[in-house]
């Protein structure tokens, strides 16, 4: 929560009328809240959650395992923020759910599965929520011949570094191809899993550490291929009072800028039909819808087709908000619905710009044998010839 919202949210939460707009797509043709669509009890809509939280605040309800479960079974995709018609507080809906998760944690009701994320991330041998030994990225620096100091830092993010190495390597190769001056740092978890699951106590330490590392590398700009890290670095660090002192770019933004500035050109064809999934952390959380599409449209030979629910109206992949670790089967069900929607477009390739979306969509693709090639847009670009123009 922002310090401003911290003061306000408990005074605002009762203003939800529970009208139910939050459950829908913008044109009401379907329910677009994954949690409500699954459970169907009013309890599992955003309005229902706000009423429950208010019930706790005014003493009508007590914290319980089930109450925490209701709060945590939400991928915090932000569809509710887009569709709630109360403009004076709709932008705070996800913040309020996350703040209530923090209250649940304080009261000892953070679910065990989500707790593991932070137990791993705070383990000095890991510093990541996946429980992998920490990579200080020195080996990668050597492999890619990266300096100790540079204008840019590529903030890999834990998902790319420990689960989607192909995306990490594709990004490293692409950044090398573009010729920008960049390096890596011994990064720790960006804090996204902590903030999204209400385990906020150690977040500031992680933020300060990462900022110090980036500054020590002499960087004035950070680029990340992770939508979750991007949202966290740009939005949450500031909320926690951190002074970044550097600019933050998503890889999509950087590539678009290089293309538009005439510094690079895509010099080979990608002759496939693709569709694009808007990651919630990039789209609804950060309003970035056009950037990836503009990059896609500059790829020669590509046939780009859109799904029915896109941009602000996109169906979530189901991984976020601690759902992937807390409710893995349901996370796959949510992705399955996205893959089915993608199937209707006739696309062979499903692309996105978030390693966590890629993980979940790929898992569902495999589990349900959907037959897609699931690739991050950077992985597609990595397959193509990039011409340096300056």
């Amino acid at each position: 929560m922002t310090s401003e919202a911290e003061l306000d949210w408990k005074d605002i939460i009762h203003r939800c009328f529970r009208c139910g707009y939050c459950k829908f797509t913008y044109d009401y043709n379907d329910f677009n809240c994954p949690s409500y669509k699954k459970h169907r009890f009013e309890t599992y809509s955003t309005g229902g959650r706000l009423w429950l939280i208010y019930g706790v605040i005014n003493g009508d309800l007590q914290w319980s395992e089930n109450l925490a479960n209701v709060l945590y079974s939400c991928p915090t995709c932000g569809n509710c923020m887009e569709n709630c018609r109360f403009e004076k507080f709709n932008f705070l809906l996800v913040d309020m759910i996350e703040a209530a998760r923090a209250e649940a944690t304080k009261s000892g009701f953070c679910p065990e599965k989500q707790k593991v994320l932070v137990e791993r991330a705070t383990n000095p041998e890991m510093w990541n929520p996946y429980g992998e030994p920490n990579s200080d990225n020195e080996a990668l620096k050597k492999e890619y011949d990266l300096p100790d100091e540079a204008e840019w830092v590529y903030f890999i993010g834990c998902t790319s570094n420990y689960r989607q190495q192909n995306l990490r390597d594709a990004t490293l190769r692409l950044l090398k191809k573009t010729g920008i001056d960049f390096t890596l740092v011994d990064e720790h978890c960006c804090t996204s899993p902590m903030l999204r699951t209400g385990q906020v106590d150690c977040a500031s330490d992680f933020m300060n550490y990462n900022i110090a590392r980036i500054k020590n590398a002499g960087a004035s700009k950070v680029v990340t291929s992770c939508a979750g890290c991007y949202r966290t670095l740009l939005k949450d660090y500031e909320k926690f009072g951190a002074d970044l002192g550097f600019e933050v770019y998503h890889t999509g933004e950087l590539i678009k800028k290089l293309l538009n500035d005439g510094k690079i050109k895509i010099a080979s064809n990608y002759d496939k039909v693709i569709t694009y999934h808007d990651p919630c952390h990039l789209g609804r959380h950060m309003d970035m819808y056009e950037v990836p599409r503009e990059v896609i449209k500059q790829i020669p030979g590509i046939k780009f087709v859109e799904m029915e629910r896109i941009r602000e109206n996109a169906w979530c992949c189901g991984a976020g908000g601690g759902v992937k670790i807390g409710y893995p089967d349901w996370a796959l069900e949510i992705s399955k619905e996205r893959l089915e929607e993608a199937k209707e477009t006739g696309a062979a390739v499903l692309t996105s710009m978030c390693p966590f979306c890629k993980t979940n969509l790929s898992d569902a693709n495999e589990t349900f044998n959907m037959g897609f090639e699931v690739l991050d847009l950077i992985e597609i670009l990595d397959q193509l010839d990039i011409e340096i123009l300056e």
Partner: protein
Amino acid sequence: MELSITNKEAILRKLEDIVGQDFASNKAEDLFIYSQDSGASIPRPVDYVIMPRTVEEVQKIVRLANKEKISLVPMGAGMTLSGLTIPIKGGIVVDMKRMDQIIEINKTSRYALIEAGVTTGILTAYLEKHHPDLEVSIPDAPPSATVTGNALIHGSGFLSQKYGNHGEMINGLEIVLPNGEICKLGSCCISDYWFTRGPIPDLIGLFISSFGTLGIATRLSIKLYPKDKLRDLAVGVFGNPKMIPVAISKITQIDLAEDITFFVQDKPAFMKGNVFLMTFITGNTQEEIDSKTKKLKRLYRKTKGSYMKIPEELNKFFLEKPMFISTAADYRKGGGFEYVGSFMPLGKIPEAIEKARDISLKYGISPTQVCRVIGKGHNVMFAASFSFNRADPADIENARNALHETNKLVLDLGGIIWKSELTGQKLILEKMDPNYKKLFNAIRNVVDPNGIMNPGNWEIR
């Protein structure tokens, strides 16, 4: 009936056996939401909530409730605001929203056959996409309101000026009676087509505004209507409320409108002391729209009103289906909102406007009245709304008192309170002809001898 904890758990197991573990609950968090609504009604305890998917499941639930003598409260979206789905005597809330299939759109006979949980938003969007030349009348409620729930409370909305209230638009109903039997009403009891409710003894009316006391509706056939290509709005401003019935009579006499609504409010300041009459017009060409607008401008003038051109944004707001009127819930920054809706004779409207305004002022609530003409002036849905702060018990109590006084006003003026909450029902029953009550009670005793269906509502016994 008071259940022991052991019995409660045993009943939950039986409910879970019917619909599966995920869709039956007696957890405090799940019940909490069902124990209250967004209106000013007092929260009351719920024992279970269950979400059936099929009519067979509904039958099993009803049979179980009958055997165990547990109350059943059917619920659509639970958006009446007057507490009609909050159990008065505990029991099981039967949330119908999983029965959400659009079964058939019959283009030729112009009806939609749907399950009881289909929302107005989903049906409207479906028609927009697949049958753009047809439309269904939907209420001024959020898109999560169910079509069936709204029709079964005598709802009204877009197209109601032309075609009447939503209860009148019902062609057929499938009901699970309190004994668990399925009863089909309307032509569907004889034919494969759900296209009309007669010509046979019309029993559908029994299930409208009886608030789930006679059974649970599982399927509904609702009329669809041809949709013109263009729709617009001509706003008239009237300083004298007495001219409203005159203007409405003239507009309906020459059949100019698709819909007529009007509203009165003190805020913002420029609205105070005026009635804003909104005539919605449709046509297939811009010439047709322009011609109707021209006629309305003249008509407004002749009835001592004046045409008001409104900004494009505001026009868009009023033309949106459904119109976003839930904004009233935030007038007092408190998320609470209830109104006394009523069916009122057109001729009584000026008095209703004046006296309801006095009540609002008495309770320190900014006067807000929203009204809709139903039929060609046959009836007006007159609503005086009261926003309140859910976080302030005194403010809620204040709103309750204002609602109660307005209920009395409605009856004094010869109107009838619409979808009335418990206290309003009592006022209606006090005034109701004894033989009407006797007949209704006799029917109810036969249909539901154990009194399991939403007991406490229309309580005559």
